[in-house]
């Protein structure tokens, strides 16, 4: 592969040799050790699942437009929301930002040639693909597939219909393949978790060992801190999935009661296991997005990030607290009032560092010189959406209120504000922001802004009505509803189409611009500081042509405060 960073083309011009064109064979992609190619392979895989998950959401919303003349049977609806949840969570947004932007940017941001263990990085990708395959088998129904392959009498086909939370004993007794579907899904989560653990480990070692000389910890980008905190969660939380898997198998194969009360088990124990992993996972999804927003706002405001140390420590703080809030998903399942109060208190402890982050982002814009590139629009939308996500989270953290809101559309709306409004908008913002670095070209900004407005308005029209449905007492996971819920459901369905169309347009715009745009980006189109902008766009295989300069701080925008007056005078 590209040993020489520059080569000469057929007619003798100096031709840039980058990570994309240094070798074009399929083999060179599937066996690549280049963190940038691995990032793109992750991106392509994630987009497939994002598309499929989105499609099932559209079917659900269409069905809910008119439940008098239903589009889907109740079973089909249950399968649709399970499919949506499982794909979006486990195959799309959990790997999400770390796998794509983390992989692409982390070495570039710290001035390294690659991650610490490039082979392990490729292995993580393959493990992710294996996990996705196992997950899809779990969704389709492993028992049915086995019977089909053996050619024996095929019973009625039921794909996985447990919801993405797989609560026992429903998930272990019915659903796809009498519980084997759930075991396969847990296996898939475990395999995918291994991919996460290896990626997390790789990133942590990379950050510890491969920083360019002089790039000390408190000069690191806030995005790298976000990735670091995320990696720590991945490494520590994922093993719990393995334990759960083992217990499910022991129960199924040996009939030892662990979760199933019919065998003497405790179904609440399952919920503890599930959320002990799945709550920290929520922070795996959003912490890197916080980092992205912290990178974008300074560049387009020409200001240093406000309160760098607080931003860093709030990420670390959120990561730590994320491990002790899990049971706030279980207030109505009958825990003791004391434990409920404790988990309510720990949950509120997350609110403070999150609030600090928002204050810091907004303050960064103070006295800036603000440009409204699409990436900046997404970042500002993120602040707005995350305010709603955060404040609606307060309602759910309040013990007495959650007794009502739990398992209603309020939770659905809150969750989508954090995950779609947070993680997905963060990912899309990042993809726009670093698109010139990834592809070497500029995208069409007009189309990107149109797509932004469709996503922003569509998203709010979809989910604000769901908050109202929640306040009205509409339970989630219902294929049917009483007449009083109809207007808000219809409005929500209406918004879905704008939202879906917006995402399609945004992604097609990027893809089209990459393939056909003639506008070259150059190494540093935003005139930004930070090491990744010192590498050519797209970067060569080894990232940097000349060793990156770490003398100028990443956030050293603007003029030192004591010199501002002087400068103003000079300018006027």
């Amino acid at each position, binding site marked *: 592969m590209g040993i020489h960073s520059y080569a000469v083309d057929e007619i003798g011009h100096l031709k840039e040799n980058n990570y994309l064109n240094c070798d074009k064979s399929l083999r060179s992609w599937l066996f690549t050790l280049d963190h940038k190619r691995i990032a793109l392979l992750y991106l392509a895989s994630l987009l497939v699942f994002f598309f499929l998950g989105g499609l099932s959401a559209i079917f659900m919303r269409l069905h809910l437009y008119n439940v008098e003349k239903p589009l889907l049977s*109740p079973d089909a609806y249950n399968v649709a929301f399970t499919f949506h949840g499982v794909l979006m969570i486990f195959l799309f947004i959990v790997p999400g930002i770390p796998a794509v932007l983390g992989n692409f940017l982390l070495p570039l941001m710290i001035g390294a040639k690659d991650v610490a263990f490039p082979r392990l990085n490729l292995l993580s990708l393959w493990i992710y693909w294996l996990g996705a395959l196992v997950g899809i088998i779990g969704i389709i129904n492993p028992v049915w597939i086995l019977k089909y392959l053996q050619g024996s009498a095929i019973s009625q086909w039921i794909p996985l219909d447990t919801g993405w939370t797989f609560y026992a004993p429903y998930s272990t007794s*019915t659903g796809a393949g009498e519980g084997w579907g759930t075991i396969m899904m847990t296996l898939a989560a475990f395999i995918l978790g291994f991919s996460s653990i290896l990626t997390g480990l790789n990133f942590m070692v990379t950050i510890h060992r491969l920083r360019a000389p002089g790039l000390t910890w408190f000069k690191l980008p806030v995005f790298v801190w976000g990735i670091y905190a995320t990696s720590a969660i991945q490494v520590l939380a994922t093993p719990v999935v393995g334990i759960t898997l083992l217990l499910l198998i022991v129960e199924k194969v040996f009939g030892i009661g662990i979760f199933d009360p019919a065998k003497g088990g405790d179904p609440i124990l399952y919920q503890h296991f599930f959320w002990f992993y799945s709550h920290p996972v929520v922070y795996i999804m959003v912490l890197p997005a916080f980092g992205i927003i912290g990178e974008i706002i300074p560049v387009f405001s020409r200001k240093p990030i406000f309160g760098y140390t607080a931003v860093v420590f709030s990420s670390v703080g959120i990561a730590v607290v994320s491990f002790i809030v899990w049971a706030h998903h279980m207030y109505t399942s009958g825990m003791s009032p004391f434990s409920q109060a404790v988990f309510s208190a720990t949950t509120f402890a997350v609110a403070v560092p999150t609030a600090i982050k928002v204050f810091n982002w907004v303050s960064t814009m103070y006295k800036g010189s603000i440009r409204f590139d699409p990436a900046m629009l997404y970042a500002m939308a993120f602040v707005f959406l995350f305010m709603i996500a955060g404040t609606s989270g*307060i309602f759910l953290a309040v013990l007495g209120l959650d007794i009502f809101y739990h398992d209603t559309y309020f939770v659905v709306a809150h969750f989508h504000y954090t995950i779609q409004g947070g993680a997905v908008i963060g990912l899309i913002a990042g993809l726009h922001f670093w698109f010139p670095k990834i592809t070497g070209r500029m995208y069409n900004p007009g189309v990107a802004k149109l797509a932004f407005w469709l996503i922003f308005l569509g998203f709010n029209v979809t989910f604000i009505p769901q908050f109202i449905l929640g306040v009205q007492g509409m339970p989630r996971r219902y294929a049917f509803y*009483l007449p009083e819920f109809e207007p808000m459901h219809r409005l929500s369905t209406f918004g879905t189409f704008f939202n879906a169309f917006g995402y399609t347009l945004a992604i097609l715009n990027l893809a089209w611009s990459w393939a056909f745009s003639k506008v070259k980006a150059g190494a540093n189109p935003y005139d930004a500081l930070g090491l990744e902008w010192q590498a050519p766009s797209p970067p060569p295989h080894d990232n940097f042509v000349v060793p990156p300069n770490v003398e100028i701080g990443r956030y050293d925008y603007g003029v030192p405060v004591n010199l501002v007056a002087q400068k103003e005078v000079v300018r006027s």
Partner: protein
Amino acid sequence: MDYIVPDKVSTVADFFDDLNLAIFLASAFFTVAIVGAMLYFAFRYRAKSSNDITPRIEGNHLLEIVWTVVPTVVVVVIAWVGIVLREKMFEVSPNVIPIYVTAWKWAWEFRYPTGKRTSGQNAELVVPVNKPVKLVIASKDVIHSLFIPAVRIKQDAVPGQLKYMTFTALKTGEYPIFCAEYCGTRHSYMMAKLRVVSEEEFNTWVNTIPEKTMPKRILGKKLYTDLGCNACHSVESGVNLVGPSFYDVFGAQRNFKDGTSLTADENYILESILYPNKRVVQGFNENVMPSYEGRLSQEELMALVSFIVELKTAPKEELVEVVFEKDEKIDLEKMTPLERGKYLYSAKGCNACHSVDGSQLVGPSFKGLHGARREFADGSSVVADDSYIKDSILNPNARIVKGFVAAMPSYQGQLNEDDLAGIVEFIKSLK
């Protein structure tokens, strides 16, 4: 908010709505302030040229301390009020009317101490206005969740455990009840009704038990909806929901998954109600239908069977009746008191909560119970003799043994003197 919140029916609803509104206003204030500041900055400091001078402000300690402390104080206060609200929601007042709630796929059942029961399609939770009620909640199969928006409370029904919920309704009327925990195919149809009535109306209602006097055919039809059979079995020819249509059953050839087959008769129908997973018809799934063994009286079972049979044929009531009555009478009367007690122990479902080997289930074990000293929650104690045991069966909640909850229904009217004597003998035998 008053436009969109559900009807306010319970004593905690006002507290709930006030707290809800207060947090909404606080959230709206902070959101508008922060997003407003962002938009103001975006407008005020929009780029005028590519070489605008910006100050390198890296932070401000005072400001940062303020915006750490203020949210901390705000959330501590909110968290505290939330805990207080939760305490209020689950505070059980004395003189509470117990109602036993059972959930299964996919129906609710509400049972009253008088023996009054509503369930399935007609499930109604009828409560008197201004009187506290306590719901003791159980599940037969998977996790369900009893959600009554009008009283602002929700409680999961967890198999193998008893949970409780309490409220005082303040306004007569009818309000929806939902299952809020996903439980499969018909989850979204697992609804019931809360009906709040005047105390007089409640007393009349709870003491009128139509099942006892109803003709069989009508009772069968009522059970068909009350038990929620209709959720999965239609009565129309060829319409198969989750289970086979009842219309097509009687006299038809049934082909089972294990390869056997038979022509459906009354006995087969009875078997399918009691042991639904023993033989499953091809094209349908195992372990979907719960067993109704021990949940229905002989009279109710008979009524259901005859209802299904008569959908297709001329009445065969007499035949069915003879079979059952012979069974029950001969079996019980021929038994010794000990045999009778042993039989009733499982037939009446005592075994669900009371073990015979000393292990503690929901209630105290029967082993070694007779002659032992019983310590009650109120501090008093007594030696368990025959009359104490009989009394505990008829008025189980009069005195509760320390460490247990008031969960047992009264068997008043369900057992005669001979039955009680039999059970006492049975317990005595467990030394």
